[in-house]
């Protein structure tokens, strides 16, 4: 089928031939092309006659084409009228509509759409990372360990007088160590005026 397509004359070639004054060459090429077209039509007719389904399709196409043309002819005046009406309506309405507001809404809408797209992409990315195992597994939250109950089990030295004395002394010393204030803040030198001048 591709071979049957009419070949168009190369415009550069045509220009070149006309420039050098060889118009007859172009005419002969055009003639040969039109002859080729006629030949191909004949061949097609022969083929169509031979194939009934193809002829039906062709008829349907022709019918639809003629229908479409009739519709266009019928609808066109109304369409033109409608377009002109829409144009006049737009002219009348446009000063009433706040263009800035529309632009703002448009901008917001565009931004919103962009954000949605980015969000969608980010979600997809996260899902992919999760699937590929890039994220660390969720670390378990630390739970306070239960202190095992150890019942008081005194040794034989629990009531030893030496041990008790050491324990008492140690408690007193520990208290004093914790409450020890090294700085003698009450003994800071008094603030006196030594610069006497007249």
């Amino acid at each position, binding site marked *: 089928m591709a071979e049957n397509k009419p070949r168009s004359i190369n415009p550069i070639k045509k220009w070149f031939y006309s420039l050098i004054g060889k118009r007859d060459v172009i005419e002969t090429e055009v003639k040969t092309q039109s002859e080729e077209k006629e030949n191909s039509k004949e061949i097609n007719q022969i083929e169509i006659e031979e194939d009934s389904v193809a002829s039906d399709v062709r008829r349907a196409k022709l019918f639809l084409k003629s229908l479409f043309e009739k519709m266009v002819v019928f609808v066109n005046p109304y369409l033109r009228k409608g377009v002109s009406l829409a144009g006049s309506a737009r002219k009348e309405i446009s000063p009433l509509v706040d263009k800035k507001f529309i632009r703002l809404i448009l901008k917001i809408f565009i931004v919103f759409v962009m954000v949605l797209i980015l969000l969608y992409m980010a979600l997809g990315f996260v899902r992919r990372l999760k699937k590929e195992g890039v994220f660390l597994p969720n670390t378990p939250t630390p739970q306070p360990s239960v202190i095992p109950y150890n019942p008081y089990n005194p*040794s034989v030295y629990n009531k030893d007088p030496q041990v008790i004395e*050491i324990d008492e002394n140690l*408690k007193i*010393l520990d208290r004093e*160590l*914790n409450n*020890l204030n090294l*700085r*003698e803040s009450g003994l800071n030198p008094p603030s006196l005026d*030594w610069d006497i001048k007249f």
Partner: protein
Amino acid sequence: MLKKCFYLSILVIFCFAVFFKVSYSQSVNEIGLDDYEEETFEDIYEAYLGANEEYKKAHDEYILKRAQFLRFQTLKSRKDAFDATLSMLKNRDEVVIAYLKVLKASLLKGVGLADERKNELFLEIDNEISWFSNHKENLSSAGSLEDLVRDSKFAADRWSQLNSLIYEVMSVLSQGKVSHLSVRLEKIFRASKNKFESIRNEERPEYAFDTSKIELLDRWMFEAEGKIDRSKEKQDEVEKIIRGNYQKKIVGLNLYNSVLSKLSESQLYMKEASNFLKEIIKQIRTK
């Protein structure tokens, strides 16, 4: 005869008692402690605060009269300025004397101080007290404002030299507190160690601890000893700072702060040692 011997012995005892009392009070008076035995630290500190209040009033008056004199330059304003300055200078000396007495009382009440050290500082403080007392008395002999200004300058110079003594006393007091606790901690450590050794050598099965517990206690004892040694090292450093710098009369607020810093470190080591000892005792008292 027996009666005579009895009366004679009573007389000898009485004479001996009187002589002892006199000699003791003389030795105490040499370092001026008699007042401090009667007066409590709180009384002396109260007197110091009172002197400070009086000084502040006198100083305000001095500021006012001085300004009036500098403005009007009249004879009356000069006389008023002279009186106000004299009063202020006397009160200032009084504050210094009261403050030095407070330092002395603090030393007397302070713990962990060697007697020799205390006596050295008492003597130095007494010297300063007598100097400022004389200065105060001599102020009355001043005849003009210029005399008062000159006398004030003498006192100011003396005060600037006194700074090192003040901070030395304060440092020694802080050092004494730490030293006192350190001695007690060492005593407790020795007692704990002796007890631990006796437990370690115990052969009766119901009194002996198992090996792991003995090893644990041994390690904690070693740690406690290490902390006590560290604490003593810090105290030695403090001693070096005090001896090295205050005796050279280097003015000492910064040095006092460095002394406190070292003493705090020493205190921290003692706390750690105390914690180890508490754990040791807890382990000894439980199975």
